[in-house]
């Protein structure tokens, strides 16, 4: 072990940008990424006796950061979501008994590049994701926002692949409606 290996200030100086970029790539939010970095440095400092020295400090810290991010997503969703009851079979809200659309989707005219760079749209999207029931939101955030693969998402969220697909289907039905109401349905929204 070299000097400074156990000092979180040194970690911040040497690995801070790297860890911050990692957090940004999962969360896409500067303030949140910095918070996660802070929690990671502190957890590393408190748990330094568990660092076995088999990996580099950086790899070890990334491991802690990954857990912090997943914990955060879980915690956030639990704290905010009150909509759990409709998680049973929400698809009945979108389709008639015979399986046809109860409210027909319509075409959206805007292209993904413009929307992606539109801050207002990103806020709308975020608030629609926030309204999803817990499990749907968790899998949608892991899979589509953080870009985790199917296997990791299933393992982290404790669902089967089949259930994951059911939850994503429900999440997308709900998101589509929400965006249609709050963005695309507004005429010249952009």
């Amino acid at each position: 072990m070299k000097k400074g290996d156990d000092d979180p200030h040194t970690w911040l100086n040497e690995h801070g940008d790297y860890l911050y970029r990692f957090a940004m790539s999962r969360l896409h939010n500067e303030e949140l990424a910095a918070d996660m970095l802070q929690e990671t440095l502190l957890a590393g400092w408190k748990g330094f006796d568990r660092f076995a020295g088999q990996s580099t400090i950086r790899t070890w810290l990334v491991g802690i950061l990954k857990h912090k991010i997943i914990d955060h997503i879980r915690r956030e969703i639990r704290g905010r979501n009150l909509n759990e009851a409709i998680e049973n079979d929400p698809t009945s809200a979108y389709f008639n008994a015979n399986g046809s659309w109860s409210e027909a989707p319509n075409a959206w005219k805007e292209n993904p590049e413009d929307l992606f760079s539109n801050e207002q749209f990103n806020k709308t999207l975020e608030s629609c994701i926030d309204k999803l029931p817990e499990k749907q939101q968790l899998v949608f955030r892991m899979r589509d926002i953080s870009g985790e693969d199917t296997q990791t998402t299933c393992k982290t969220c404790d669902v089967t692949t089949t259930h994951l697909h059911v939850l994503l289907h429900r999440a997308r039905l709900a998101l589509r409606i929400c965006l249609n109401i709050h963005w695309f349905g507004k005429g010249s929204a952009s």
Partner: protein
Amino acid sequence: MKHACKEVSKLASDSLDRPLSFFERLKFKLHLSMCGHCRDFDSNITLIHNITEMMHATDYGQTRLSEQQRKRLHDSLNSSIE
């Protein structure tokens, strides 16, 4: 064909996460060729999916902590560690 919209919307969603089987794809394409609502649904959720893909494809290679953030982190480490 209308009775199949619910099922087809699931295939549209699944196709973003896994390859559809031959028969699923056949059913899906056939239905879309006849149903504008499901075509719109498919393109709506594909658009959302494309946007989220852009998010995690964002290259943060040049991203750095700002001096302000860095200072705040050092400060909060100091106050937590002492």
